[in-house]
């Protein structure tokens, strides 16, 4: 329950902070932190334009996508307090529910019959396929280290002691951060602010969405960031009491948003053809984490 509230609150300001950081970095004043949320509210009140090519899939997909993200959010714990749902193998459910949402957003893009949106769909399906093994290996390593298979049990029994585990926590943070960049379609994988549809991934898939549906998709995107942020926070706060854990949750989310903003300000997007290589690197990094766990458990003899 606690995690749910915290994620909602983090989602409120997360994207705003990214935008603000980017504005400040480029010497502008920038909109208010809550501007993205106001945008979404405005979209929720608007009418919509549907393409004549589309079918009911196109109208159904944003809802399914949004509920998949909500559902994934329910299994995310916060330190010792578990999420609404917590069971053995909940991280598998987490990944597969998100995949269901992605499936629908991809077929919705193909439903419009637009060449641009098909292109986005193709990229999205390929990149998410590459990113998934990293998440599963990471969770596998943590499961091996802690001897549990649910988010809450894994995170609450993780404690960072030795130097290897510091290195591993850093690597795990990197992996989760990068997965959230891929999922949230941010730099350096995707450039949400480019003006050229040919170079987009996620944005080009939702070209035809408008009104309420677009609002749902954007909200889901904000929530996704906060969810991955919460996972990263969970890596560190394991057994820390709540009065320290909650401020550190917001601090880490804030840092993550600023980091994303800075990356987007000072980095260019990768060439599309280099993206897969970059994403596969994530799998290798998570394998490194796995070997680190093997080291800790002294399986190498």
């Amino acid at each position, binding site marked *: 329950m606690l995690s749910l509230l915290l994620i909602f609150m983090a989602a409120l300001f997360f994207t705003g902070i990214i935008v603000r950081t980017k504005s400040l970095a480029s010497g502008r004043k920038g909109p208010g932190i809550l501007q993205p949320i106001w945008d979404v509210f405005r979209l*929720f009140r608007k*009418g*919509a*334009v*549907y*393409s*004549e*090519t589309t*079918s009911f*899939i196109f109208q159904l997909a944003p*809802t399914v996508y949004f*509920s998949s993200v*909500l*559902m994934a959010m329910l*299994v995310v714990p916060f330190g010792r307090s578990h999420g609404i*749902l917590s*069971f*053995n*193998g909940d991280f*598998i*459910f987490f990944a*597969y*529910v998100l*995949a*269901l949402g*992605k*499936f629908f957003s991809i*077929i919705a893009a*193909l*439903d*419009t*019959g*637009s*060449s641009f*949106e*098909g292109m986005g*769909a*193709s990229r999205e*399906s*390929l990149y*998410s*396929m590459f990113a*998934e*093994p990293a998440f*599963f*290996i990471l969770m*596998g390593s943590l*499961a*091996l280290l802690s001897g549990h*298979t649910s988010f809450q049990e894994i995170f609450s029994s993780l404690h960072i002691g030795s130097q290897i585990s510091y290195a591993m926590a850093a690597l795990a943070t990197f992996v989760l951060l990068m997965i959230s960049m891929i999922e949230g379609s941010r730099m350096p994988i995707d450039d949400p602010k480019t003006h050229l549809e040919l170079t987009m991934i996620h944005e080009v898939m939702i070209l*035809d969405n408008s*009104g*309420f549906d677009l609002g*749902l998709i954007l909200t889901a995107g904000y929530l996704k960031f906060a969810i991955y942020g919460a996972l990263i926070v969970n890596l560190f706060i394991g057994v820390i009491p709540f009065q320290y854990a909650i401020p550190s949750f917001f601090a880490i989310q804030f840092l993550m948003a600023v980091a994303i903003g800075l990356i987007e300000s000072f980095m260019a997007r990768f060439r599309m*053809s280099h993206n897969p290589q970059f994403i596969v690197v994530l799998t290798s990094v998570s*394998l490194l984490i796995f070997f680190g766990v*093997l080291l800790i458990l002294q*399986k*190498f*003899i």
Partner: protein
Amino acid sequence: MNLITAFVLMPVAGILIIPFLKVRWKGILTLTLLAINAVLSGILAVNSLTGETISLILPGSYVTGPIPVRIDALSGWFILIINLIFLTGSLYGYSYLKTYKKREDSLTLHSIVFLIQHVSIISICGIQNSFVFLIAWEILALTSFVLIIFEHENPVTIKAGINYLIQAHFSILFLIIGFLWVLNKTKSYDFQAITTYSSSIPGTASLILFLFFFVAFAIKAGFVPFHTWLPYAHPAAPAHVSGMMSGVIIKIGIYGILRMLLVVKADLISAGYVILIISVLSGLYGVMLAIIQHNLKKLLAYHSIENIGIIGIGIGIGCIGAGTGNTVLATMGFAGALLHTLNHALFKSLLFYTAGNVYQVTHTIEIEKLGGLLKKMPQTAILFLIAALAICGLPPFNGFISEFILYTGLYAWLSDGTLFSLLAAIFSIIGLVAIGGLAMICFTKAFGIIFLGTERLQILPTCREVPFLQLLPIYILAAVIVLIGIFPLLFIHLLAEPVNLFNGASISGSDPLESGLFNLLQPISLAIWLFILMITALIILRKKLIRNRSHAISPTWGCGYISPTFKQQYTAGSYVRTYSKLFAPALLVEKEEEVVHGVFPSEVKYHTRAYDKIERGLIDRTIKLNKNFMGRFIFLNNGKLQIYILYGILFILSVLSIPPLYRNFESFIELLKKL
């Protein structure tokens, strides 16, 4: 006993009556006989699933010896799957074949062979006499051949059929070697003799014996690298036959492997690793090739290879669990494998039937030529979508349940073990995840291109949904898919007995399955219910909220371009282009393209054809070498009748001279011994 006699008499009745009926009644009688047989065998199967093994010994004949028939929980599970798929398959076939009404003789043969095949495939699940087993296996191979070549006027179909026939006989060859080996040592056809024999010989020998059986059944099941018959046979057969082949006939290979695991007392750990490695490779290879196929049925055929791989992963980790005494791992592995066998039978036959609908309406299954069918045939499209989601292992459908059990098994494997098993576990996890991700690319492509967007060739203005009777079997399958997805616990009880045969629970007395799987799946089904509720609530909420908003219909946003045509849509080829470039080393895509010339270019062509690297290396090369070798003897084949008669006489002479030669040889040996 009477049950079995009645069971065998049904196809006999079919042979006697069907040829004399009118076309309409042929189908109805086939359906009736099949239903009777399904009920007869179903009674036995249901009994066996409650834990009592039915075992009786038929007298047999002088040649075969007594024929033991044992129907245990494993047989029961497969018999139920087979009956479900055969019933829906024949119901679908009944509607599907209506277009071929004029070919009465073909239909007669088809119906009769259909009944015989059902009997042979059910018998395979029960018979435990190796000689009769081989006969039933051969009948299955031959009947499948006849069913595949229904459209035999097409040379491609005949070629695919013969390809299947030859590979099926390779499977029989390995089976014969295995059975002869045991027969030679024990002088008994009974499977129990295999058990006693294999536990008396050293571990490596029994492992080799198991591997002979494994290869035989792997050819049938379509494990890589024995898969090459599948992608030809499935597209060539009529839709209901390909659905059933993919649904049950390749599953009988899985049954064989599981049966041999029980019968042959081999080293389970090594056998498990062999199966696991081959399965992960099959899964990955199958789906990697499935993505680049642009023929829908071929794509589905490669997906069968992938799913056989997933089932194999379950069997592999199950064996390792049983071998190391890790009951949780064994339970999860075998439960996942058996459940996925059912699941794959359901969604794959569903997909083939919907592909059949598409074919009947549009007369093509080339993905690149289709498009926008959702508006023309909405029910087929939704059914296809359900199966596509299920086959990708996404909640809330049945594929997720079995894959979830497998994942739990793999993660449970991580908690104990040596470095080697940990590495095997983590790479299996990577394999399973990658299979899932790739399957998603494949089915977003298949569904998106075929059913969404607008049509790519303007050939389909008149097509519409197929009649309800044809959709009915597909609805039944979809209902079971959803049922397993949202009430997995119902099916866990059915699984208990078959899994207990393998995981050693019956020996140790504890029952980890009931509690373990139950505890595992209960929260999952809760979560799935919550998810469904949430989606429904959101859909209703959205409807309420946007009811009073204005909404307009306009063309798809063309990024400023105002007159887009249907030709500008993303095609299947372009959808997977990045993928096929990245995976180029593993794939074999032949391209023919013409370069565009001049300012006003004329029409150019771009054509790609996907081929199979393993097929090129393993099959084509062998055939080429064989041809080269045989080519040296072509001078014998000179077309002169006199010479051929001479060959005959030479042959008879040489046969006749064997005994005296042998006697001379024997005396020569004795002479040597004396010396």
